[in-house]
């Protein structure tokens, strides 16, 4: 009776089931990859939006608010180099130089871009009238794409005003 079964049924059924399970695995793997990618994209987007929010507060010089947001960022995403760079910028605006340097050290440990860290240090120095000794240096700071132009120009302006005040006080 067994032999009387149509050839196509048993083996085909067997083959079909085997293919189905392989396809399911493939689909599963593909789905997992897609979900992973979607989560990654969502995280990147969400992370980018959180950073953007802090950058906006910093642009408005709402530095205390920006610092609060960097703490929230840290709780949500863990400690990151970029977060520490933004915290350093807020500290620089608030003229809390020691805290600014500490944040930059932390940023270096957490893998922030060395060029960005170096630029922030340079802005801190510029804000104190240092690093402005030659027009070349000044142009370099102003033209740097590592921070928004207004960040660079503001630090330079603060430094120049400070320098002028010092010159005036030393000459009188």
């Amino acid at each position, binding site marked *: 009776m067994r032999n009387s079964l149509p050839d196509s049924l048993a083996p085909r059924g067997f083959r079909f089931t085997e293919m189905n399970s392989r396809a399911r695995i493939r689909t599963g793997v593909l789905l997992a990859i897609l979900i992973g990618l979607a989560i990654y994209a969502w995280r990147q987007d969400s992370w980018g939006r959180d950073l953007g929010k802090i950058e906006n507060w910093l642009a*408005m*010089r*709402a*530095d*205390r*608010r920006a610092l609060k947001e960097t703490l929230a960022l840290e709780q949500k995403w863990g400690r990151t180099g970029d977060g520490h760079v933004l915290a350093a910028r807020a500290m620089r605006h608030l003229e809390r130089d020691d805290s600014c340097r500490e944040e930059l050290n932390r940023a270096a440990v957490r893998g922030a871009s060395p060029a960005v860290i170096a630029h922030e240090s340079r802005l801190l120095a510029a804000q104190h009238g240092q690093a402005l000794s030659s027009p070349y240096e000044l142009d370099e700071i*102003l033209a740097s794409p590592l921070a928004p*132009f*207004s960040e660079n*120009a*503001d630090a330079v*302006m603060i430094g120049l*005003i400070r320098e002028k005040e010092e010159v005036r*006080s*030393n000459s*009188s």
Partner: protein
Amino acid sequence: MKLWSAQEPDTFWIDYYAGLISSKTGDEAGALAIYEKAYAIEPQFIPLLMEIGKNYWFVQAPEKAIEYLKRVIEVEPDYDEANSALSQSLASIGRFEEAEAVMRPFIDLADVCSDRARQHGMVLIGLKRYQEAINAMTPSVRAWPQDLELNRQLSECYQLIGDDKQADLYSKAAEKGAVIVESISIRRNRDLKESKQATAIAELGHDIMYFVSRVEGRDILENALAINDRIPQAHRDLATYYLLTGLQERASFHQLKALELENENGNSSVLRATDE
């Protein structure tokens, strides 16, 4: 600035800085006119709102000052200076309850070196809560017994609660302080703007710290030491200040520096810089 406006033609920054420079030269009304131009471009920029608020206060327009300072605090509720300026503006037009409400979250944070106890005292006097005012100001006057305003306000409080003996005590201390404070206003111009002798600045910083304001005194002393860091008394004053504000490390630094310089000097003159 030319480069800046070329780079960003619609920027508010140029007017902001022009206003700042105008304000620094004492032309508050002129500064306000410039700031308003910046404000028309960027009404959210916190330092601009703060500057407009402060300048309205200087030109005796507290209501306008309040308007701008409130906007700062909406975004930056923890901004100490903005809260303090707002509270002061409210108190100046008799809105004591609001002034106290603004101050309340910061009162516990106040140390004996901040000017907040004095401000709080003033607001509580305005609210006729004299005993509370005494309680608020007493720790500060214990740490800084020469402060003119603290002594004046405490004398007033004790007088109003009928304790003439205490009122008299504080009144006498205030009288002594008044003489020094009078000399401070003359020296402030002379020593800070004309003379640039570090020792003269340090002496002024010392008097301001003890008789007028700890925070202002600290800043002037730090400036004096930036010109010449070999003035033992300036280090001593800063050591006291930092000790009372809990900044132990800075206090120790200035304490050691003062001792070192005094040993070099053989204690001859603590106020004189060692190399001036």
